[in-house]
Structures are given as structure tokens and as C-alpha cells.
């Protein structure tokens, strides 16, 4: 057995877009079976970080590794990685079933395997009654669930979710989190970005991203406990992060 490599590794990622330094030395690690949250304000660099890990973007400096492999140069990564982008990423003029089928084929899933998994995912996401509906006629929450189902079809070992709960109703949100916990218990590594602080608390570990690098990292309860020691009586996550970000700006 080779020594266990982290499921996801970002080492000193830098990336500049024109005048904007989107990533400025971002470093983090995620183990198998871990649910890692990238938390941060708009424009912090969360999406850029996730794209770098997915091999969709070449960092100016630093490197990303997925299961020890280079996502930019090793196509094998793509058979073991699932991505749910922040923006619309499915074919709006295709139906729910057609989208699922298309992405299953791109992952070269055998037909019986696809049937069984699609059925299960449609059941979990409760999209089964809507398979004939075009993606552009789904509600925001239903669309997100379909995108999640597409990212899960090939049962990836690493799942990257970019603000998956944005625009999703509270009930569906709770369901989604329950699902994620189920996956990580099965050994999947999940990286999730979210602007919601209540969601941060449901991660095993979080990293607070600001201006392209981590301001703070750790298990949510440990971060809160540390803050209490520093003199905040009963801080919420939100207060904690706002204090950090304002501190970084000062």
C-alpha cells in the first residue's frame, strides 16, 4: 500500500485575472470521508479555487492534486471526480432524463448501471415525476438537485460543490445536507462552498477564504471555542467570520 494521499490538496494556489488577484496562496487539504467547507464573501475566490481543483483552470503558481493526481494533466482524475458548478451547467433544452443520460454516457457508464443509479438518484432527489421536463422549466431548487444527480452518476470519490444550496428552499437544503453526510460516511471527500454561515457549522472542517487565501481554518466547534477564549462570550459563526474579515481589512 502506498502511503495514504489526501483526497484533495491545494498547495499555494495563485491566480490573477487582469487586475484581480483571485487566488493569493490558497492552501488546504481534504481527506477521504471528510466534508470540507470553503466559506467566504462574494469574490473571495471560492469558485476559482474549486475550478483549479477540478482541472478547469491552470493556476499561475502552486498546484492542485486530486487523489494524488494532477487534475490538469491526468485524465484519470475525471473518472473519480464530480463537480456541481455554481452557474447553470446543464443543457436547458434537454429534459431531466436526457441530461442524466448524456452525462452518464460521457462517463461511459454501462446501460444497466446507469438505469439503476439514475433511478436511485431520481428517487433521492424526488425528481422522478419530472424526468420528461426540460431543465429550463425546473424550479431553482429542482435544477440544483438535477445538477447534483448529474455530478453523482459516476459515483465520484471526490465531490466538489460550488454553492449548491443557493436559491434552494430550506426543506430541500436540509435534505441535501443529509445526503452529503451520507456520502461522506461512505468515504467520499466533499468540498462545498457556501456563503451561508449556518451551513458552515455542518461541515467537518471549514476554511474562511478572503482575497484568495485562508484567514482561518478548523473544525467549527474548535474555532468557536477558541474565539470564546479570546473574549467573545457566545459568538455565532457569523460574528466570528465578520470579525476576522474586518480584522484582515484593517
Amino acid at each position, binding site marked *: 500500500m502506498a502511503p495514504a494521499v489526501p483526497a484533495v490538496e491545494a498547495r499555494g494556489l495563485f491566480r490573477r485575472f487582469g487586475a484581480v488577484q483571485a487566488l493569493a496562496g490558497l492552501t488546504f487539504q481534504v481527506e477521504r470521508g471528510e466534508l470540507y467547507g470553503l466559506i467566504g464573501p462574494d469574490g473571495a475566490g471560492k469558485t476559482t479555487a474549486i475550478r483549479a481543483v477540478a482541472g478547469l483552470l491552470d493556476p499561475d503558481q502552486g498546484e492542485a492534486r486530486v487523489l494524488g493526481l494532477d487534475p490538469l494533466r491526468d485524465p484519470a482524475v475525471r473518472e473519480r471526480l464530480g463537480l456541481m458548478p455554481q452557474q447553470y451547467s446543464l443543457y436547458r433544452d434537454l429534459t431531466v432524463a436526457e441530461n442524466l443520460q448524456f452525462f452518464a454516457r460521457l*462517463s461511459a457508464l454501462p446501460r444497466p448501471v446507469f438505469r439503476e443509479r439514475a433511478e436511485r438518484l431520481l428517487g433521492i432527489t424526488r425528481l422522478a415525476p419530472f424526468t420528461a421536463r426540460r431543465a429550463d422549466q425546473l424550479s431553482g431548487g429542482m435544477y440544483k438537485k438535477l445538477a447534483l444527480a448529474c455530478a453523482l452518476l459516476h459515483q465520484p470519490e471526490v465531490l466538489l460543490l460550488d454553492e449548491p444550496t443557493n436559491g434552494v428552499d430550506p426543506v430541500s437544503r436540509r435534505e441535501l445536507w443529509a445526503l452529503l453526510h451520507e456520502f461522506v460516511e461512505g468515504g467520499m471527500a466533499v468540498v462545498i462552498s457556501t456563503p451561508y454561515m449556518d451551513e458552515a457549522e455542518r461541515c467537518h472542517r471549514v476554511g474562511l477564504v478572503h482575497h484568495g487565501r485562508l484567514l482561518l481554518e478548523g473544525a467549527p466547534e474548535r474555532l468557536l471555542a477558541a474565539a470564546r477564549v479570546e473574549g467573545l462570550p457566545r459568538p455565532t459563526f457569523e460574528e466570528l467570520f465578520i470579525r476576522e474579515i474586518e480584522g484582515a481589512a484593517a
Partner: protein
Amino acid sequence: MSLASARRQLGAVFRKEVRQTVRDRRVMFLLVVAPLIQTVVFGAAVDFDVDRVPTVVVDHDQSDVSREHARRLLADGTLLRAGDFPGAEAAEHELDDGRAAAALLLPRGLAADLAAGRPAEVQLLLDGTDPNRAATAGAAASRYFGEVGERLARQRLEAAGRPAPAQVVVTPRVFFNPRLKTAPYIVPGIAGTLLVIVTTLVTAMGLAREREMGTLEQVMVTPIRPLWLLLGKLLPYLVVGSFDVLLLIGVGTWAFGVPIRGSLLVLAAVMLVYLVSTLSIGLLISTVSQTQQQAFLGGFLFMMPAILLSGVMTPIAAMPPWLQYLTILNPVRHFAEVMRAVLLRGAGFGDVWFQLACLAVLGVGILGVAASRFRTQLA
């Protein structure tokens, strides 16, 4: 990934493209109906054949001789009598209003002058708006009166008992398109032009749309290789383009009398390599475009010179030498040449291998460049 997986992936992209295309009525229109309409319209409009030029006659002489000359000049079909007027002013008015394109002015004393062997001046007023038509009408009149003068001169010499001068007669014989009709020549060129528009634009917009819609990222994190993705996006339009070629040849034959003298196999071969090259150019354009708008503009940037320098509008031989060499890179040129050669001259593989080879090299080469650009561009 095994070859079987690659085939599945290719099939998936192919089916997806077909579904999206069939569901998009505008694209279907662009692909099938527009080329048909354009061929019919262009074939009918781009008619360089000049005959039946409406001509008014002003006969100041009013003699049997002058009437006979007007009748014979207007009898051969190039000029068509559009009325008789007493004075030049009225005739000019007809030209101004566009009711006539030429006016024949026969001077007073024409019969007497000719009989006496004095020089006579016949005037022809021409509408120069269409230079081609004006030149043809002018040539018809010059030819007619030239022959008249020559005949008179000979008669006078013979009457004086002297031998007639030797003369050189040019007898043109036109091959391949004996009636010098424009349509059989222009329609194959138009077909190539329309095809490049349809195929290049559709594929150029295709990838750009995926990028704009965000679907490309989702596709790029799956194991599909760029070449299979591009092939999957190209093949459906190869089918549509082939259908268009058959449609255009059908219309050309049926409506414009374009003959099919050569082998259909050569036609099929040129169609295939031509479409692969134009579709690949579209893909290449879409790899350098971020948005559909950029892709559209890029498509035009390629198509305008490609069409103008294809020999469809102006002969390649009339271009400066360096530009002639450059047109070797122009697929439209090769396609138009092969189509004309096969349809009008009955050419076989042996006659058009150079063009076929150029198209094949262009198509495969450009597709390769597009695929490798596509790979490095994401990174």
C-alpha cells in the same frame, strides 16, 4: 478509456447535438431552408446572361433601307424593340425612366449616304448602369453595322471589277457550356458559398454557446477527450451539410439546367472533405471565441475573404500571384473548382485529385489544431 467507451461518448455528443438542433427551429431554418431559398434566389438573380435588351428606335430617315437595318439589327434577340419614337429627346426620356436600356438613332439621309458611298453615323445611346449589358448591346450594334459596311465595300469593289480583299473570320466554338449560360457556372459556386456559411457558422457558434451557457465546464470534468467531443459536434452537421449539397445540386439541375456530367462518387468525395474542412474551421473559430457573438464575428471574418477569393465571384487567374498562392488554403476555391469540373466537364478523380488532397489536408489539419487548442486553452 477504451475505444468502446470513446464510441459511447461520441454517440452521446452526437445525439445531444441532434436533439438540440432539431428543437431549435431557427437553427433548422438556417441549416436547411435558407440554403435552398438562397440558391433559388441567387441562381435566378445572378444571371449574367444578356439578351433582350429593351431598345427604342428613332428613325429620322424613314426610308426602306433604314427600316430594314433597324429590323435586322433587332432581329437576333440581343436587342429587343421597345418602341419607336420620332425624336432623340423622347428616346432619352425612355432611358431615364428605365423603360429602355438602349436607343438606336438612324440619321436623316442614311439610305442616300450609303448608296453614294459617303460615311454615315448611326448613334446608339446606352444605359451604362449595368456595364455588362451596355457592352453587350454596344457590341451587337457594332458587329451588325461593321458587317454592313464590309458588305457595301465589297459590293463596290466588285462593281469596279477589282478583287475583294482577303478577310479573317473568327469562329468561336464554346465547350462545356455551349450557350454560355451563367447559371450552370454560378450555381456550383453558390452552393459552396452557402455551405461555408451554414457549416462554419453553426459549428463556430456551437462550442461558444456551450461555453456561454456553462455546459462546457460540466462536460470538461467528464472523461471525454477533446477530439471525441469535437467529432461528436462535427458529425451531425456533416450529415446536414451533405443533405444540403444534394438539395442544391438537385435544385441546380432541375431549376437552372446544371448538368451532372461527372461521377457522383467524385461529388460525394469532394462534399465530404469540403464539409470536414469548413466544419473544422468553425470549431477552430469557436475555440478562440469566448461568446457566441465573438464566434459569429470570427466566422464572418473568415467567410468574407474565403468567398471573395474563391474564384466564384472573380477569376483566381485575375488575382496577383501571391494572392493566387494564398487561395490554395481556401476550401471554397477547391470545392467550387471540383464542382464545376465534375458537373460541367465530367471530370474524374484523376482531374481533381489536387483539390481533393488540399481539402483533405486542410480538414484534418485544422481539426487537429482545433482539438489541441481546445485542450491547452482550458488549462
